[in-house]
């Protein structure tokens, strides 16, 4: 939808190509949906208004015109809708992986997409909307008047492409729509070009901004289904036709203030509006007045349960991944040090491979790639195993350097006492090595805690994902940003404390406990020299 990737193929698309190459052997499902009586549908709650977004009044509830459409379709087919969250970039790979029956979230019917999935008949068609200041002094009334002017739009969007084709336009790209309209309002921009629904929901209620010009371009949205499920495709098409003809869809678009001449043409329905645009009014009401400080704080307090649940996900996935990393890292390190040469070389190869490739690719591969060879992990385990394998490589190196930091004479002294190699390792070498490795391991854990934000790309709602959802729903990246940063810090704090404590305990053996880990000889009397 709003982010139409240009020719640059993003990582998900590469994975998608990989998935498609291997997917030939996938069995075609006999039933229309994966689970009887349930329609699992994939979308991205961060996708934004008015498509699907957390209800400003209650951030646990997902609303949006696409949510209404899915509910109507499911109702028509006698199925129970079940929402599956996934990052927008991965909605189509998620279909191939069998995460859900259908995907809907402003997915455009493009040739690249059609190679990967089947599309239903379109449920919505829209265009790009030009907006200027109400007291426009630059004389812009059509897209062609933008030559030589300052125009803002979304980064890497269809609108950006259109503006580039115009030629001598000074294009300013933004990540957040709200900032674009703010700059238009304060004169930094002369015009803004956005998908019509986004324009309506960003600035339609703003008295100092007006929409001008004819519709620009054409954008068609349809529901995506896996290639092999033709039965469900015809069911969905039947549902859309029926809902269109019965006026149910029209009602939804009216409620959301998304009906347009283009839609009238698509549905061949030229009748006047019959019901109030209640959903749009709620939105406009929530966003028109500037919130007071207490209002803001109250809203932030309302975020806490969502952040709390997300923090639990972050902690669980991080702790599980770290447990895997610590244990597997130990096995790898011991293999590299003690096993026969060929086995040690294999362990070295594993370490270099895991350290040398991005963890993002590894997660994509485990989650979307492995199902093709029959290994299907849940999002949680895919995330924990992916991060765990990656960090095991780092832990192995830490252990290895820890083992070699202990003098060889300690090893000989233990053997000379009649210990076996294993006993010497367990009683003498490892306890001393632990002291050396605790600080770097703690460091790694804090790093892992932050890297766990990557699990949001495999459908999990962790802290970072929750931040994206809430910030996108409220136009507010500031307050929630500070909240989420503080939560990350709080989660990391106990591990930092534990590390200090352990270091101090172990340091007591040196010099009879006269100094702990805080002892800093660089700041001793030698600093005068």
């Amino acid at each position, binding site marked *: 939808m709003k982010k139409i990737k240009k020719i640059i193929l993003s990582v998900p698309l590469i994975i998608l190509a990989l998935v498609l190459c291997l997917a030939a052997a996938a069995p075609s499902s006999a039933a229309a949906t994966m689970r009887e009586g349930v329609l699992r549908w994939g979308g991205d709650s961060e996708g934004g208004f008015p498509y699907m977004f957390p209800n400003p009044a209650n951030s646990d509830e997902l609303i949006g015109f696409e949510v209404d459409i899915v509910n109507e379709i499911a109702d028509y087919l006698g199925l129970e809708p079940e929402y599956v969250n996934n990052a927008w970039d991965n909605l189509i790979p998620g279909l191939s992986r069998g995460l859900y029956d259908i995907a809907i979230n402003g997915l455009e019917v493009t040739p690249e997409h059609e190679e990967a999935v089947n599309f239903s008949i379109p449920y919505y068609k829209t265009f790009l909307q030009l907006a200027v200041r109400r007291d426009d002094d630059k004389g812009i009334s059509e897209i062609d008047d933008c030559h030589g002017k300052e125009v803002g739009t979304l980064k890497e969007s269809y609108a950006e492409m259109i503006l580039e084709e115009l030629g001598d336009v000074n294009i300013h790209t933004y990540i957040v729509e709200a900032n674009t309209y703010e700059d238009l309002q304060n004169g930094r921009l002369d015009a803004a070009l956005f998908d019509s629904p986004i324009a309506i929901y960003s600035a339609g209620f703003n008295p100092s901004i007006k929409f001008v010009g004819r519709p620009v371009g054409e954008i068609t949205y349809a529901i995506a289904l896996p290639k092999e499920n033709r039965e469900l495709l015809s069911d969905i098409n039947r549902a859309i036709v029926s809902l269109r003809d019965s006026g149910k869809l029209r009602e939804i678009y009216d409620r959301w203030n998304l009906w347009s001449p283009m839609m009238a043409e698509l549905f061949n329905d030229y009748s006047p509006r019959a019901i109030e645009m209640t959903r749009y009014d709620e939105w406009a009401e929530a966003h028109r007045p500037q919130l007071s400080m207490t209002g803001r704080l109250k809203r932030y307090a309302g975020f806490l349960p969502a952040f709390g649940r997300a923090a639990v996900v972050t902690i669980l996935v991080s702790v599980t991944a770290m447990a895997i990393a610590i244990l597997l890292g130990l096995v790898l390190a011991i293999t590299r040090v003690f096993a026969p040469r060929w086995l040690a070389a294999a362990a070295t190869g594993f370490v270099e491979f895991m350290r040398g490739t991005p963890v993002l690719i590894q997660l994509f591969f485990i989650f979307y790639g492995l199902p093709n060879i029959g290994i299907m992990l849940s999002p949680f385990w895919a995330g924990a195993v992916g991060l765990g394998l990656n960090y095991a490589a780092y832990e192995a190196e830490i252990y290895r350097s820890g083992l070699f930091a202990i003098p060889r*004479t*300690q090893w*000989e*002294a*233990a*053997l*000379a*006492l*009649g*210990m*076996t190699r294993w*006993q010497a390792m367990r*009683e*003498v070498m490892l*306890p*001393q090595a632990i*002291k050396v490795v605790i600080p770097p391991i703690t460091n790694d854990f804090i790093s892992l805690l932050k890297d766990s934000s990557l699990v949001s790309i495999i459908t999990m709602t962790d802290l970072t994902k929750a931040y994206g959802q809430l910030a996108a729903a409220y136009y507010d990246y500031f307050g929630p940003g500070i909240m989420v940063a503080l939560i990350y810090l709080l989660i990391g704090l106990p591990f930092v404390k534990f590390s200090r404590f352990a270091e101090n305990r*172990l340091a*007591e*053996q*040196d*010099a*009879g406990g006269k100094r702990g880990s805080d002892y800093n000889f660089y700041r001793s009397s030698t600093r005068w020299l």
Partner: protein
Amino acid sequence: MVNLPEESLIVVESLFKSFEDGEILKNINLNIKEGDLVSLIGPSGCGKSTFLRCLNCLELLDSGYIRIGKVELNRHPGQKPDEKMIATAHEMRSEVGMVFQSYNLFPHKTVLQNVMLAPVVVKKMNPDKAREIAMTQLEKVGLKEFAGKYPGTLSGGQSQRAAIARALAMNPMVMLYDEPTSALDPQLVGEVLQVMKALDAEGMTQIIVTHEMQFARDASDYIVFIDAGEIVEYDDGDILFTNPKKDRTREFLRHFNGMGMAVNC
């Protein structure tokens, strides 16, 4: 030099050992009786430390024969070490106590834990029993009141005495010392040598690689002079020092003339 093999506690025959950079031990033959205190002397790099490490199998001999007590290790030239040989080496190591130049106490354990560790781990001894034995050994070396301290807090002499107690706790048949006093301040050497003399009086068999010529001469039953990987001379301390038979021995001992050693050349 008239040791009959059947009375000897330690027998070494035709022992050879090489490292990548050359042959270190060339045909070592030596018998040591139970209760003897034998000093190994010789210039640096002559192979005396390697010989000691071969005796407790920290280095596996290339070929030759070693018997300590009833444990026999025999290796033909070119023979690959097999399971049986490794097991024998391990068995031999547990009959032998070793004391290193740099003490090598375990810094993460207290003095008492250092001494208790091997009996508990290797001999699976009951910890209470092991503690009792450890305290007896610590008392013997005069460190009873240091039992709860960490090695980092001990002086060099105390550390080396603790290391001796640690080796004794395994009740070894023979004690090996690899330059036990070389890292010590001169005034601390005496307390370590004192412990070794006391052990000699108890009848412990001891082999000492040392540069303490006075001690070697006074305390040893025999002194072995090793040079360039070979035993050059093997004799009673006084005889070796006052009347060496070989030129190489005389040459080496002349070095100590200036240090007040009475060498009759």
